[in-house]
């Protein structure tokens, strides 16, 4: 099975987020970008599938600025066989439909039985890219997937928790799957593989090539205007009490009358 796994560098969980000086987007300067969250689970899932189906390969693909390269190397260190960086526009863009168009243009030129990704990116949380890519490639797509398994050379089974309950699906290949965060504890890369990944070749598809292929669609139509952080929390109002009953009574009163969040 030719497995493509889509990944996006996102800020480390502990990062201190702030806005750019013009206030329009998150400031990338001083942030450590990593392979994490949904994408880390997707890479793990891709590797598990590869291990269960001899002759399979995993191809990591990332769209965006130069920091994609380091995230792709992290995927190689974990076991991806090859990697492609699809360069974003020089002025930057975080339009998810544009990202999907650029990625789909590249995927059309590489083998892909299964295109795996997180159900959404860990930063912008749009969840638009997997479905948009599938529509562009003309193949089925499924988001919010868990427990993905191969059912022979040309099909998959998986579960999908929805508001109504847990659905069980059978799907043909090729298709696109957006994964829930897995609970399967993604593996860590071994040091020799990390060292080897630093020298691994990464194929680059430059922006002029992509923008020519996309023609009029190469312009973002979703544009960040303002990036705001909540006012820092100033610490809890401490509730003094002598008995548990007093604590309960005071807390419920505050939740009803002051915070107004009591059901």
């Amino acid at each position: 099975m030719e497995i493509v796994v889509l990944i996006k560098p996102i800020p480390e969980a502990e990062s201190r987020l702030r806005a750019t000086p013009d206030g329009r987007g998150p400031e990338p300067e001083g942030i450590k970008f990593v392979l994490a969250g949904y994408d880390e689970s997707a890479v793990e899932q891709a590797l598990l599938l590869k291990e269960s189906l001899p002759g399979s390969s995993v191809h990591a693909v990332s769209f965006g600025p130069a920091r994609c390269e380091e995230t792709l190397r992290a995927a190689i260190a974990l076991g991806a066989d090859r990697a492609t960086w699809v360069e974003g526009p020089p002025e930057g863009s975080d339009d998810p439909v544009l990202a999907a168009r650029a990625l789909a243009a590249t995927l059309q030129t590489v083998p892909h039985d299964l295109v795996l990704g997180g159900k959404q990116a860990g930063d912008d949380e749009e969840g638009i890219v997997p479905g948009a890519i599938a529509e562009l490639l003309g193949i089925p797509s499924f988001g919010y997937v868990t427990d993905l398994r191969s059912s022979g050379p040309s099909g998959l089974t998986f579960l999908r928790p929805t508001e109504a309950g847990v659905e069980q699906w059978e799907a043909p290949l090729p298709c696109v799957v957006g994964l829930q965060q897995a609970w399967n504890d993604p593996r860590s890369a071994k040091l020799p593989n990390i060292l080897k990944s630093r020298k691994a070749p990464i194929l680059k598809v430059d922006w002029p090539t992509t923008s020519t292929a996309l023609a009029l669609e190469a312009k973002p139509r979703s544009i960040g205007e303002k990036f705001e952080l909540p006012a820092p929390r100033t610490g809890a109002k401490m509730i003094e009490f002598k008995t548990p009953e007093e604590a309960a009574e005071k807390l419920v009163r505050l939740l009803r009358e002051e915070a107004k969040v009591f059901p």
Partner: protein
Amino acid sequence: MTPTVLVLAETSGGLLTGPTKEAIGVARTLAGSDGSVAAVTMGGPSALEALASFGLKEVWMADVPPEAATSGAVAALAAHAADESRAALVLLGGTTFGRDVTGRLAVRWGAAAATGVTEVAITGPEEVHVRRPVYGGRATESRRLVGPRTVIALRPHAFAEAAASAGTPTVHALDRSVIPVTEGAARRRSLAPAEPGSGPSLSDATIVVSGGRGMRAAENFHLIEELAQSLGAAVGASRAVTDAGWRPTSFQVGQTGRAVSPQLYIAVGISGAIQHVVGMVSSRTIVAINTDPSAPIFKVADYGLVGDALTILPALTREVRKVRGLPAN
């Protein structure tokens, strides 16, 4: 300008779902007095009655069984309805189904798109502004969506549900031949319905009660569940609890678990490690109960109680049940 706003309606048990009613409410506001609100449904005739009671002028209808309702099939039909209704904007509820269709529909219909939206305004002839939480609710962004067509999935619970309003919609049948043949091979084999009385799921809940190591033992965790039940809340847990096997990992809130942003988050016996905090800090109101007055959780909480969870929880559950008029347990 008289915009038509098209809502992709979902039904459950013959009734419109909450997120769909929220979308109809937003659509009414956006359409204003000179625009109109239409709907597209995959639910067939059984969905019509539900839609008629919300005053929609026109309904585009297909009858797609849930077993075959893939995002590709639904997007194809919804794009067709959007063309026929001459909609400028398609709104979807923030459900699994709605979120899953958004990206496909955006491409199929040639639209700009955004999901998880908590504020939306039409600001020009080909311009829509949205606000949406990002980074697990640690920040909020405003985006400008440009072009004649826009697809927006709303965030659940962010808007009020539309009130019912009688009407008799004109019904248009959608031609299923627009569904790509590649969608035909995918099939939903079964649905294990959510257990009634199992409470809301972590990501849908407006209140979450989470327990941590301070609960001291697995056999005390029922105190968390009883408080959650009295509040109609979902139950969460810190990593210490799931690592110890007191509860499965699906309960875990935090960096390696689920990110939640309910109206009220009650952290019980949770110290407040950054890995937990990133998963709950965007909750509107946070309550912390902990024996250690210097626990970092009190820095992110709005209300703090220093004390033993094992004595405070039963009293709190009793008080909640009393105030809500529920029978004492």
